[in-house]
C-alpha cells in the first residue's frame, strides 16, 4: 500500500518537473496529519479544514471512533450528567473535509515525514500535529501499575475506567472508606482531582453518609484550594480528610489485591481507591522524539511548534509551554494558534500574533460552581500569564449557580467548537 503510494508520488514529482505549471497537478495539495482527536487535535483538524477551504488535506488519526471527554467526567461521577452526554463522534468533522482514520499511530519518521499506524498504513505529511494527551509514569505510585487499574482505577482518561470508578463508589459498604492518591505536578486538569472528591462526596452524602474520604496528596497546595475546602466544610462536613506532604501524603504505597493503602507507614483498609499517577506526554510524542527529560514536549510559545522539529506541532497536555494549565480549554486555545500558523506556512494566509486563554470551571455541590482563568501571551521563554481571575470564597448562591450554568454553556460551546 505505502510503496504504491510512494511510487505514485514519485511519479507525480517527476511529472510536475516536466510541466512548467506544477499547480495543475492535483496531488500538490499540502498534507497535515493530526494525531489525537481530543480538545487539541479535533480543534486543529476542524479549523485547518474549515479555514483553508479545502486547500489543505487534513487527516485526523484517533484510536476511538467515539470520543469521551475527560472534562465533565467528574459530573458524571456525581450523577449530574449521563455517560452518553460525554460522548462525541467524528461524523461532522468527516463531513467538514477532515479524513478521519480510527487507528493508533505507532511511529513517526521525522526524516521521511511519515506516520505509521498500527494497521500498517503509512501517512506522509508536510506538517504533523501531535495532541496525544497524557500517559502514566511507571512506578510513580509504588504498588500500582496499569495492570492494577481494574482494582484501583485511575479514571483519568475518560471511558470504561470512569464507569468502573462510579460503580465502585456506589457499591461501597455503609460507612466505608474511599481513598484518592492525588498526582504530583504537572498533570492534566489541576482542579480535577478535587472536583472529583466533591462529586464523590456528593454521591456518598446521599447514599452512604457515614462513609469517609481520604486524599493522600504529594503537593503542598492545590488548585482552587480555598474554594474547595470552604465547599467541603459547608456541604460535606467531617467527610473529607486531605493529607498533604507534611503528614505523609507524599509517602504512599498501594496494595490493590489486599485493598490497602499505606500512608507514611500507616496501613488503611479501603473499599474504593482512585489512583491518579504521575503523568507524561502521550506515548507517541516520545516515540516521535520531541519530548525532553521531563517527559513533556517543549514548544515554541508563539506557534506551538515543537522545539525539536519545525514541521511538528505539539498541543495540549503533551506540550511543555509555560504557564497554561493542562486542560481541554488550553488545548483548544493552542489548537487555534497552531492551525493559523500551519495554514500560513502552507497556503500563505495571513498570520496574527498568538493569543491564548483558559478557564476551568469546577462543581463543588449542586448549583455551587466556581471558576479560575487567565489570559496568556507568548514571550521568548514561555507562554506567560498576563491576567487572571478566580472565584472568591463566600460568594452568594446566585453567583455560584450562574457560574455552574455558565460551565454547561462552555461544555456545549467547546464540544461544538471541537467536533463541529
Amino acid at each position: 500500500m505505502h510503496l504504491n503510494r510512494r511510487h505514485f508520488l514519485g511519479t507525480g514529482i517527476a511529472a510536475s518537473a516536466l510541466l512548467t505549471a506544477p499547480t495543475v497537478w492535483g496531488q500538490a495539495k499540502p498534507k497535515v496529519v493530526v494525531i489525537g482527536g481530543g480538545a487539541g487535535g479535533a480543534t486543529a483538524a476542524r479549523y485547518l479544514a474549515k479555514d483553508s477551504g479545502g486547500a489543505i488535506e487534513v487527516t485526523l488519526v484517533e484510536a476511538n471512533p467515539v470520543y469521551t471527554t475527560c472534562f465533565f467526567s467528574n459530573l458524571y461521577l456525581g450523577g449530574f450528567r449521563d455517560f452518553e452526554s460525554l460522548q462525541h463522534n467524528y461524523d461532522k468533522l468527516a463531513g467538514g473535509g477532515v479524513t478521519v482514520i480510527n487507528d493508533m499511530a505507532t511511529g513517526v519518521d521525522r526524516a521521511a515525514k511519515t506516520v505509521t499506524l498500527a494497521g500498517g498504513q503509512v501517512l506522509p505529511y508536510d506538517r504533523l500535529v501531535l495532541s496525544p494527551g497524557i500517559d502514566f509514569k511507571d512506578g510513580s505510585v509504588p504498588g500500582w501499575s496499569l495492570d492494577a487499574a481494574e482494582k484501583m482505577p485511575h479514571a483519568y482518561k475518560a471511558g470504561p475506567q470512569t464507569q468502573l470508578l462510579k460503580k465502585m463508589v456506589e457499591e461501597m459498604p455503609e460507612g466505608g472508606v474511599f481513598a484518592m492518591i492525588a498526582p504530583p505536578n504537572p498533570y492534566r486538569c489541576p482542579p480535577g482531582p478535587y472536583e472529583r472528591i466533591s462529586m464523590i462526596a456528593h454521591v456518598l452524602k446521599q447514599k452512604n453518609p457515614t462513609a469517609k474520604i481520604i486524599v493522600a496528596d504529594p503537593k503542598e497546595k492545590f488548585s482552587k484550594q480555598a474554594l474547595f475546602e470552604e465547599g467541603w466544610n459547608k456541604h460535606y462536613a467531617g467527610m473529607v480528610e486531605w493529607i498533604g506532604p507534611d503528614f505523609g501524603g507524599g509517602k504512599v504505597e498501594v496494595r490493590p489485591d489486599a485493598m490497602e493503602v499505606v500512608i507514611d507507614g500507616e496501613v488503611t483498609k479501603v473499599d474504593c481507591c482512585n489512583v491518579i499517577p504521575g503523568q507524561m506526554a502521550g506515548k507517541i510524542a516520545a516515540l516521535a522524539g520531541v519530548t525532553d527529560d521531563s517527559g513533556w514536549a517543549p514548544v515554541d510559545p508563539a506557534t506551538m511548534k515543537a522545539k525539536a522539529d519545525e514541521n511538528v506541532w505539539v498541543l495540549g497536555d503533551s506540550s511543555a509551554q509555560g504557564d497554561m494549565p493542562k486542560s481541554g480549554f488550553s488545548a483548544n486555545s493552542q489548537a487555534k494558534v497552531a492551525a493559523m500558523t500551519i495554514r500560513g506556512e502552507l497556503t500563505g494566509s495571513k498570520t496574527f500574533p498568538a493569543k491564548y486563554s483558559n478557564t476551568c470551571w469546577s462543581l463543588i455541590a449542586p448549583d455551587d460552581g466556581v471558576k479560575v482563568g487567565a489570559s496568556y501571551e507568548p514571550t521568548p521563554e514561555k507562554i506567560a500569564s498576563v491576567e487572571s481571575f478566580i472565584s472568591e470564597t463566600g460568594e452568594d448562591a446566585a453567583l455560584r449557580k450562574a457560574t455552574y450554568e455558565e460551565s454547561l454553556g462552555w461544555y456545549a460551546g467547546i464540544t461544538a467548537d471541537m467536533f463541529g
Partner: protein
Amino acid sequence: MRRSLVALALCLALGPVPGAAEAIGDAERGATLFARQCSACHQIGPEAQNRVGPRLTGIFGRQAGSLADFNYSKSIVRMGADGLVWTLETLDAYIANPKALVSGTRMNYRGMAEATDRADLMAYLRAYSDRPQDIPESEPTARKTDPALSPEILAIQGDPAYGEYLASECQTCHQADGSDQGIPSITGWPAEDFVVAMHAYKQKLRPHPVMQMMAGRLNDEEIAALAAYFATLQ
C-alpha cells in the same frame, strides 16, 4: 471659629438630598423626560407598582434584576448575579443603550443618546431612591462618567480576517450558531453594539470577570475586527 467654618463647609458639600440630585442634572427636566419616554412601562414613587417594566423606586444601589416580584429577562438576572449594581455610572450606560450593556434585556428602548438628557433623568430617578445620601457623587463607584466612545473608535473599520482568528477564541464558549445555553449568543450583533459592549467590559462597566479579562487585552482595532466578523455571522 475655624472649626465651625469647616463644619459649615461639610454641610454645604454633602448638602440636602435635592441639592445633591441637582448636582447630577436638572431633575425637573428629568421628570418631563420620564413622563415622555419611560412612564409607559415604568412607575416610580412610594406607591409605584411593577408594570411592563419593574418599579424604579430605590433603583440606585440595587442589584440588577433583583426585585423578587418582577419577572426579568434571564440576561439581566445573570448580570445582577455577576455583580451589576445600579449606580450613576452603570445606569447611565444602560439608559444610553440598554442592549449594549445587557444584551438580552427585554427593555425595548432604543436608548437616550444625549448625555445631558440622561443626567437630568437620573437626577429625577435619584430623588426616589431610598437612601440617596448613600451615593454621593464623591463615591468612586457612583462617579458619573460618560461611557460614550469617541467617534474615531466607532468609525474604525475592522479587518474581518483578523476578526475571524480572534473570534476563534470567543467560540470556545459562545457558539457560532447562536445557541444560548448558560452563555449568551453573540452571533449577528450589529457591529456598533458589539464595540460598545466590549468597551464596557474593557472599562469594567459590565461586571463579568472572564469578559473583563478577554476584552481587557483587546485594543480598539481588535475589537473592531471582532465586531466586523460577528456582524457577518448568520
